[in-house]
């Protein structure tokens, strides 16, 4: 065994790429096309300002339920993110807590993923409301839900 050499820069070639046993990412099977729920969500959202609070909640649940889990289709993901962002920003601050409490553990994890996705592309007013969503989701999901956003291999 060689005694420890101080610098390992004698390696200029990445020999691991020539190893026949190296880890190759498995190609995921294309998921069946999910029915697009955004028209339904939009319709529910349009009714919201008329004062029916439960519509926002239903829009929220529909958006969560129809989120594309397994797809690699970037366009579909973009659309789902856009829809979700619209739903999240249209909530009144006082109703966020009730919405978060109505979710189960997986729903909270999914919500956290969308919140961080929303942070990545901030628009004028989105960050403020997203921070409120984040605070409420953190209270329910704990630090574990944020860790799962960071380690997730299937991004939302």
């Amino acid at each position, binding site marked *: *065994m060689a*005694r*420890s050499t101080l610098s390992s820069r004698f390696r200029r070639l990445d020999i691991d790429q020539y190893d026949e046993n190296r880890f190759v990412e498995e190609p995921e099977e294309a998921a069946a096309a999910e029915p697009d729920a955004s028209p339904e969500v939009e319709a529910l959202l349009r009714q919201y300002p008329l004062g029916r609070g439960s519509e926002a909640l239903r829009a929220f649940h529909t958006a969560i339920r129809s989120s594309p889990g397994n797809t690699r289709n970037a366009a579909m993901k973009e659309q789902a993110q856009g829809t979700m962002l619209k739903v999240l920003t249209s909530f009144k601050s006082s109703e966020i807590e009730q919405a978060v409490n109505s979710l189960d553990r997986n729903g909270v994890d999914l919500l956290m993923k969308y919140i961080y996705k929303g942070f990545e592309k901030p628009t004028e007013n989105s960050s403020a409301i997203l921070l409120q969503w984040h605070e409420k989701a953190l209270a329910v999901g*704990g*630090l*574990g*839900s944020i860790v*799962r956003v960071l*380690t997730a291999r*299937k991004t939302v």
Partner: protein
Amino acid sequence: MAYHSFLLEPISCHAWNKDRTQIALCPNNHEVHIYRKDGAKWSKIHELKEHNGQVTGIDWAPESNRLVTCGTDRNAYVWTLKGNVWKPTLVILRINRAARCVKWSPKENKFAVGSGSRLISICYFEQENDWWVCKHIKKPIRSTVLSLDWHPNNVLLAAGSCDFKCRIFSAYIKEVEERPSPTPWGSKMPFGELMFESSSSCGWVHSICFSASGSRVAWVSHDSTLCLADAGKKMAVASLCTETLPLLAVTFITENSLVAAGHDCCPMLFTYEESQGALTFGGKLDVPKQSSQRGLTARERFQNLDKKASSDTANATLDTLHKNSISQISVLTGGKDKCSQFCTTGMDGGMSIWDVKVRNPHGPLRLG
């Protein structure tokens, strides 16, 4: 519970001898130090210097009183006590990356080493050549093997690795043992046979543990989840997404309860409900003494608000016993089915012993 601070540096790994009077640990360097308990103090009695790289795993065989250590120098050494000196024997593992974890089998006639070469080396002693020989389990491991645990039948081995999966292999060596009888994990067990593979969780599997009977295996992974596979339920996997930071070590303390600890610096209890096949969080086991709430002056409150945007000092200091992540848990007394004491070591250089008090046999466990 008792806490002893050995070092200012992390304790990389530790192992206890049979009667729990001596502890072997690696003080984050190339050596292994053995401490003996003298009343309330710990005194260092041996320093084992043979490795050229950090020692990543230590295991102490209770019956034969041998130590096995493995390190980042791609070597493993088996140490035997001759007189008052520990003598090492080199074991050639035939790996080209660091060794990460090592475990003696229950009958102590072989040991397993997990390494960054994406394989497990099963080493056994060949009498004719007076030499330790190893066999490799390679397929289908795709990344570093971080943790290992043996089934009580001395043949099955559970391995958790960085490719996000937990697997159970057969490590049957025909030279040293008889053919094993069927288990709930399967009946045909040739060397290297994959008996169980979990579906991917999304995190590196830091630690893995068989229950005392061997029909359950639990593992913790880096996405803050704890999972348990029950062979009695056709290998159904129950998983729990915890609200804590990732856990780094897990062990069974009864057939239905687990203790796990990690980056939150305190051990936590989890229970497995067999009928529903569900894991539940049982609470943190490090309940700090209620410290008197010192009143804050207005100036301090304003300073807190300015610096931290919050006026409460609840999270300013860690009030757990360990002041840094706990990296390893070992059962001290009672075995994995009726554990009454377990030990944790962490990155704060401290070792702490915890007592488990069973309030009533069917009720929840409490900790002393």
